[in-house]
């Protein structure tokens, strides 16, 4: 605080409260809509006070979803969870290994491989949709968890992050390990991985959210309802048009789709912020 200006402090609180209210408003309306019956939601304007069908609606979507898509949201959430976990853990694992190779070994084409990984930053899924889809379908990966996750687990960002971190590990540790007769993999497991724990935790939070929120890729590779992720499920539920859409159930699904990543952000806020800042360096 530079100087005491009470009125400015009051203004600050008002602006921030307004910001919080605007940010929270869509989710509040979603929550309310998910407690009403379908006809109540269709009444314009919908009541902004909670209705009485909270439990009914959530049980209904968890068991059999909404509209024509017959898959239950429980199944969809399981799919989302599996792909988010595989993507996050897979990215971290292969990046740890490749960063370790690049930092602790000298070998032919080291620089070349490093640049190959770097270039992937410039090729987001969106710009190579069709050919990537074709590769996945040629490999028989449509409608499989492998197809939903493996094409997404190469990560330049994570590799750089770990490389930067490994460069700060004192050389003495590696020397000591060698004198004690530890091979490179022993050193990797017993020294490098434990030291990287904070980076791994931070990255895990970011990558879990990234994996959970994937849209375009699962939209392409999943055609069967039982492979839909929650985010895809919602899109399928609303594609029937206004009259056919059971908005109360769609909104319940939306709440369920937002809950896990939002909880991760709020509960692991420290790691989340570290992950965001680190991965943008």
């Amino acid at each position, binding site marked *: 605080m530079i*100087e005491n200006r009470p009125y400015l402090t009051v203004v600050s609180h008002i602006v921030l409260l307004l910001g919080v209210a605007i940010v929270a408003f869509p989710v509040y309306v979603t929550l309310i809509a998910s407690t009403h019956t379908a006809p109540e939601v269709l009444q314009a304007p919908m009541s902004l006070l909670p209705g009485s069908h909270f439990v009914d609606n959530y049980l209904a979507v968890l068991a059999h979803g909404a509209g024509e898509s017959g898959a239950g949201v429980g199944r969809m959430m399981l799919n989302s969870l599996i792909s988010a976990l595989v993507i996050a853990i897979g990215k971290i694992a292969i990046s740890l*290994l490749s960063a370790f190779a690049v930092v602790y070994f000298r070998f032919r084409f080291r620089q070349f491989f490093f640049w190959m990984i770097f270039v992937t930053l410039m090729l987001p899924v969106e710009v190579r949709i069709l050919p990537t889809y074709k590769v996945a379908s040629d490999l028989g990966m449509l409608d499989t968890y492998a197809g939903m996750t493996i094409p997404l687990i190469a990560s330049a960002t994570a590799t750089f992050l770990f490389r930067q971190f490994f460069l700060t590990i004192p050389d003495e540790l590696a020397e000591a390990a*060698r004198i004690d007769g530890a091979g490179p993999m022993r050193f990797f497991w017993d020294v490098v991985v434990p030291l990287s724990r904070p980076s791994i935790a931070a990255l895990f939070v970011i990558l879990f959210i990234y994996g959970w929120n994937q*849209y375009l890729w699962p939209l392409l590779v999943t055609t069967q309802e039982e492979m839909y992720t929650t985010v895809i499920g919602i899109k399928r539920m609303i594609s029937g048009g206004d009259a056919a859409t059971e908005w109360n159930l769609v909104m319940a699904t939306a709440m369920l789709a937002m809950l896990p990543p939002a909880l991760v952000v709020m509960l692991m806020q420290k790691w989340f912020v570290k992950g965001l800042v680190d991965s943008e360096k």
Partner: protein
Amino acid sequence: MEKRALFRSSWLPYALLAPQLAVTVIFFFLPAGQALYQSLLIQDPFGGNLQFVWFDNFKELFNDPLYLASFKVTAVFSLLVAGLGLSISLVLAVFADRIVRGSGVYKTLLIWPYAVAPAIAGVLWLFLLNPTLGVVAYWLKVHGVDWNYLLYGDQALLMVVIAAVWKQVSYNFLFFLAGLQSIPKSLLEAAAIDGAGPVKRFATIVFPLLSPTTFFLLVVNVVYAFFDTFGIIDAATSGGPGQATEILVYKVYKDGFKGLDLGGSAAQSVILMAIVITLTVVQFRYVERKVQY
């Protein structure tokens, strides 16, 4: 920076790199090469009659009014998303920085939209602004606004901009707040003693010192608007009405998957790749906070 202490092995480093490189080659380089190659071909939708046409696909694209319109939509969209997103979050961050007690609470309450999937952000705002049942649409109508994004392209564009900004504010806010908190307080105190009020201090000290953060966020936001908003557009408007919200990324998807124009879609992919490469180079070349290679 290089390590002095190294391990020796003729095969281990290759084995360690293998998984990452395998995924990279199979799912990045192969498809990207395919896109490059296909962009020079014409093929009919049923897979026959392949013809090599050099740059005809590109020529055709740049003579196609629909493609040029999509460029314009993308430009307007990303300018609005970046402009609105940055200004709103800067205002919030400046006020949050002022508050001594409780700023942590505000931070927690403002950052969670980052966790919401773009497609879901699109659905939430679609629900609020739906002309027949949306709560906000109802208020707008009561106040005499003729709101129907299914008919008016500008309104549809506004809707996806709002959804995109809503989701991105949390990210910008975090970085602005961190930037503000790293400005030395002594500078601001000195200015205050010299009689500069809060507005003057912001304009002459805080904002200039914040410019690296602002520039970094500008690039990130443009990239976000170009690529990560696909889910918002697809869920909320599907590019419509007409072409009003059809950004470049959406058009690649639509022409390729729904229109089955492989050559044209591949050519669009190549143009998008060029854009990403430019943006990435800008980001690494001019942005202060970067990795050292």
